[in-house]
């Protein structure tokens, strides 16, 4: 049977993944839209930066974030100046780290969906009298349903499995910043294999169900499209 602290870790993990995805969908939409439409010559610099978390070891991201959040780092100074709690070893800090860590998993599907829509439907909407924001909400968003679903689920699932970044900037404070993947690691370290099994199995099942949802829904959207 899992410990009570494991349930707390599961809850923190889900909360972290959910908030991260919401933040990413809100900030990723304008970023992806810009990337899909800009003709700026140096656009590839931004694209490469967005894709960095795909290749960087999470500990590297975590290390830099830890430095930035420290009392001498820019983020640390900012929070001190604003009179806020330091970000390091806090849940907010975890959200920030996860947002950066999962950024490409949300931005890239959105960008490719936006590119796929093309200019055609937007030009048609414009000739029918729709203003730019109107066009975005009535044409782009509905036509990007499957892209949003993919982005949300990938971002969520990827945050669920986060380990390195959390370990660096979250510490491992039970009830505050201890997430599922670290709880599993702790159990294995202390040779509590039964508890590790419970958590690992739960994570496996959850991830599989999520992906099943994406592929199932995407198929249905395709059928609606035809």
């Amino acid at each position, binding site marked *: 049977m899992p410990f009570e602290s494991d349930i707390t870790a599961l809850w923190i993990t889900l909360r972290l993944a959910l908030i991260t995805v919401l933040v990413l969908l809100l900030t990723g939409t304008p970023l992806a839209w810009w990337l899909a439409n800009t003709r700026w010559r140096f656009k590839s610099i931004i694209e490469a930066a967005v894709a960095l978390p795909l290749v960087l070891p999470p500990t590297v991201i975590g290390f830099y974030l830890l430095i930035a959040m420290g009392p001498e780092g820019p983020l640390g100074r900012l929070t001190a100046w604003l009179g806020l709690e330091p970000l390091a070893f806090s849940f907010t800090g975890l959200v920030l780290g996860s947002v950066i860590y999962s950024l490409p998993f949300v931005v890239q599907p959105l960008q490719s969906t936006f590119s796929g829509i093309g200019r*055609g*439907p937007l*030009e*048609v*909407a*414009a*000739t*029918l*009298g*729709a*203003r*730019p924001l*109107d066009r975005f909400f*009535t*044409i782009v968003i*509905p*036509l990007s*349903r499957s892209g949003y679903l993919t982005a949300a689920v990938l971002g969520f699932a990827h945050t669920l499995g986060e380990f390195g970044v959390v370990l660096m900037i979250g510490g491992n404070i039970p009830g505050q910043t201890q997430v599922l993947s670290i709880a599993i690691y702790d159990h294995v370290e202390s040779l509590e294999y039964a508890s590790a099994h419970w958590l690992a199995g739960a994570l496996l099942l959850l991830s599989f169900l999520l992906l099943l949802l994406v592929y199932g829904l995407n198929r249905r959207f395709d059928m609606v*499209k*035809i």
Partner: protein
Amino acid sequence: MSIHARVCLNRSEFLLQAQFSAPGQGVTAVFGRSGSGKSTLLRTLAGLETPTPGSEISVNGVTWFGQGINLPVHQRRVGYVFQEPTLFPHLSVRGNLDYARDRSGRRSGTGQGRGNGFDEVIALLGLEAFLQRQPGTLSGGEKQRVAIARALLSAPALLLMDEPLAALDLHSKEEILPFLDRLFAGAGMPVLYVSHSPDEVARLADHLLLLEGGSVLAHGPLAEVLGRVDSPIARTDQAFSVVHCEIAELEGPCHLSVLRTAAGDNVYVPRIAAGQRQAIRLRINARDVSLCSQRPVGSSILNVLQAEIVQLSEPDHKGQQLVQLRLKGSAELLLARISEYSCQQMALVPGINIYCQIKSVALLC
């Protein structure tokens, strides 16, 4: 009320430099080969392309571009029918039409709208049975009818149609043409209709704008532009004229119907189905017209029209000449393509009367 445009647009390897005025009502066909800038011209008028400063576009007294003004697309009262049917796939047919109607009031202002009633437009394009359907379940022709209805419901001051039939198969074209006839017969707004099909132009247009290499070669009333011996169409084998007739006798002899030109000459055509309109347009290819100095006797060719020679073109490299003729007692122009040798033998000069034998005509109801 009219459309004035003087646009210049510089794209890599393409320069559009077009200046023209088109009447504020009726259908103006924009005709030219592919790559002549027809679509680019329409896109520029709609605001989808930005012309160079100094260009001017005004429609029925409203400046859309020029004098420091550049109205964004959604503020130009333009209806646009694209070559490919462009229905929004996530909306039903009704949803697509509502999308246009819901936004039409905002830009039409007060008292300016044509009062395009929803029901009238639906009836005009025969869409009653489709309203609840999804675009994906419609045929190409049906989709394009919905797209036309949608453009009309946006209460445009100018309707732009960019080869709306080009992507359709022959059957769908035949199906949609009667709807266009009805639409244009009652359209209170000017229409610019891009096409590279002589048949469509001859059937639908009142005015003609000829484009070549991004420049306007000629523009004016259809018969006048078509009748020119120096237009780009005239230079090709496709040269043709449009002649207006009335039905004289539907059930003529031997499965024929008899039409009468404005000059009173009879034209025999294959029997026309009853119930069609009284006025009929005939398309006559210049290469199907031969000339006789006297009324031909004992010829199998039924249709002979009296005319006067107006002018002759220079012979081309194949030894062919175009003759522009005015049908006797009317203002209608007819083109004949004959050999340079015949011209010399018959001593054809402007001003002489002549008989035109017409081998075949195409009916364009």
